[in-house]
């Protein structure tokens, strides 16, 4: 008995040791990400990654955008190493890369085909020519409109409308008694909320945040025109409560058929045409983001990207994951599981060379042309000293951009005049620039 038992015991011990060592080898990759639809899908699909990489455990921290940003910034600046993969945007990436906080993305496998990624997106995620994050999805902005309402009213939406035309349409289609509003736009204060739209409007009206000497231009003519226009069109022909509407609120309004037009991120294309969440799925038309004096900078450029902080203790595993989640192979997986229209948009040429995608996703060609138009380095009519279409890629912008956003939302709700709001805003921005040493 004893003799026969011995080998099996030894085997068991061996098995035990083996399983222990694999457990010790399994690396945990903690991923901090934002609670957008595409990221939720990524989490759901990540079991495929874990199956292919049994030595990597994924741990998900999914937070609302503002909370996530605050959480990630404290973590990376304090070098505390809580996250191995961070979901960050085009605003943070070049600043953090410059600070030396992010691992450069230079050892990418050939199969990843980094050149397939749109040059503007790559540019926006680089600092001094070094790529610091891989884009998960990217977006510009465009106009969504209701084909049925336009047809009924005998109106015709041009492919590249101007703001003046938008106003005419909004006036014609505004019917608040029937809960149908002419136009829905972002109004909620925040540098990434109303200021994203407002800045593209200012660009289209020929303005910019700063002149070449970093003097704030918010009290200038272009801003006055743009903000007056914004307050008029959204205040008079928009939904009630516009000053607290952000992307999500407007999406909900549009999907329930309450907006005749809506200008927002191209990424909403797949949501407004998805029958399971949109009551108007088959009635949506697409046009460019409106221009006015110029079309430069009239549509924004943003990407949600995955980056690896230098403080990570599982960099190789993290890179495995990041390249998987932003690869062509991942896109195929999404197409298989959720349908081809659900592919994370706006990042790769190959997506838009796929005829099946172009056929299924009606919004794809407009997304593509908007993505190609947006250039974060040539975004204003007159020269400006900063990069970023709808933001200014300097550390203080998240603060003063939001304060300006509050002033604009104050003007929209009518409790300060546009003149007063812009004077306040200009003063705040100049103050911050002086404090940060951009001005003497």
């Amino acid at each position: 008995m004893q003799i026969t038992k011995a080998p099996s015991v030894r085997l068991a011990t061996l098995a035990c040791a083996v399983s222990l060592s694999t457990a010790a080898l399994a690396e945990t990759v903690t991923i901090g990400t934002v609670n957008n639809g595409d990221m939720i899908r990524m989490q759901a699909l990540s079991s495929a990654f874990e199956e292919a990489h049994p030595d990597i455990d994924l741990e998900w921290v999914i937070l609302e955008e503002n909370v996530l940003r605050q959480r990630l910034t404290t973590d990376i600046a304090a070098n505390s190493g809580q996250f191995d993969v961070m979901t960050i945007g085009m605003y943070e990436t070049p600043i953090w890369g410059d600070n030396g906080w992010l691992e450069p993305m230079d050892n990418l496998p050939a199969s990843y085909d980094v050149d397939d990624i749109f040059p503007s997106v790559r540019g926006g995620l680089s600092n001094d020519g070094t790529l610091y994050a891989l884009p998960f999805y990217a977006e510009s902005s465009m106009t969504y409109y209701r084909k049925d309402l336009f047809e009924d009213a005998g109106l015709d939406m041009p492919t590249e409308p101007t703001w003046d035309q938008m106003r005419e349409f909004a006036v014609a289609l505004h019917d608040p008694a029937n809960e149908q509003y002419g136009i829905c736009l972002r109004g909620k204060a925040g540098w990434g909320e109303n200021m994203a739209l407002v800045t593209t409007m200012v660009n289209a009206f020929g303005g910019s945040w700063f002149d070449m000497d970093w003097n704030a231009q918010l009290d200038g003519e272009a801003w006055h025109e743009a903000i007056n226009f914004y307050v008029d069109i959204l205040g008079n022909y928009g939904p009630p409560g516009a000053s607290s509407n952000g992307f999500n609120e407007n999406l909900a309004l549009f999907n329930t058929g309450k907006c005749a037009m809506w200008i927002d991120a191209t990424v909403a294309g797949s949501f407004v045409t998805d029958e399971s969440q949109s009551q108007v799925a088959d009635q949506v038309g697409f046009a460019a983001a409106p221009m006015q004096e110029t079309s430069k900078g009239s549509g924004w450029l943003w990407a949600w990207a995955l980056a690896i902080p230098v403080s990570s203790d599982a960099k190789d595993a993290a890179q495995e994951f990041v390249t998987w989640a932003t690869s062509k192979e991942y896109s195929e997986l999404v197409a298989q599981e959720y349908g081809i229209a659900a592919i994370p948009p706006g990042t790769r040429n190959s997506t838009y060379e796929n005829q099946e995608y172009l056929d299924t996703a009606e919004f794809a060609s407009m997304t593509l042309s908007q993505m190609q138009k947006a250039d974060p380095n040539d975004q204003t009519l007159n020269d400006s000293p900063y990069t970023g279409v709808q933001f200014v890629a300097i550390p203080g912008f998240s603060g003063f951009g939001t304060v300006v956003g509050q002033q604009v939302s104050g003007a929209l709700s009518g409790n300060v005049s546009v003149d007063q709001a812009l004077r306040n805003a200009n003063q705040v921005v100049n103050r911050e620039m002086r404090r940060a040493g951009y001005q003497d």
Partner: protein
Amino acid sequence: MSQINTNAGIAKILVAPSVILLALWMIVPLAMTIYFSTLNFNLMIPGGRDFIGFENYYWFFTDPSFIAGILNTLILVGSVLIITVGLGTLIAVLVDNPFPGRGLVRVLLISPFFIMPTVNALIWKNLLMHPVSGLFAWLFRQVGLEPIDWFTDLPMTSIVIIVSWQWLPFAILILMTAMQSMDQEQLEAARMDGAGPLSTFWHITLPHLSRPLVVVIMIETIFLLSIFAEIFTTTSGGPGNQTTNLAYLIYTQALLQFDVGMASAGGIIAVILANIVAVFLIRAVGKSLAEQ
């Protein structure tokens, strides 16, 4: 006698842990905060961190929203206190006498206090106060009124409603339980003397409630001074700076751009202001604390 002395000695030892812990909790972060408040310290800009004296304080004090921030803080604290204490007292008196289902009514009354502030704000903002799809908008339309655009037209009122809903149950709870220990004989005697309900309330009930009222006011003030989640979730301090209180101001001016120096200066200023409020409060209502 010696027993009492030893006990007094033991008392000192007993009080020590909480004092020492709180002292550490107070002093360590406070010292760090004071130190940081004199530095040019932005998390987004590594290196640097030069000593700049009181410059952060200068920028914080001269912020265009600073005065508004202080006023909004006081308005918010004041309105919520008046509403919760006033209504709380009335409701506590109302449910003091037995009636069918009193136990259940009490449970319903105190429930909102158990709700997380964020959840509270999200429910009110979306499900109830949404100007198009919210329940209130629908109710208004049912009776032929134009729906109120809560967060645009009445932003501060909306915040006050939301916060009051959270804290009213706390006031009810404390006052309701205090009511139970009322001296019934005294009440009966007053009634025999022909005192009406108002004068009974004024001369007997209210004095009896004075100490619980102090508890309610003190605790609520402490929490209301630093209300943040409700504003963050609903109005983001706007429109304009109509709902920017001090806590939110520190957030936008400092934490949003990760300026630790400014945030620290703002924190120190807020502590000083909070203590001033506290002193006033204690002068005004805290006598009963000193009396006995």
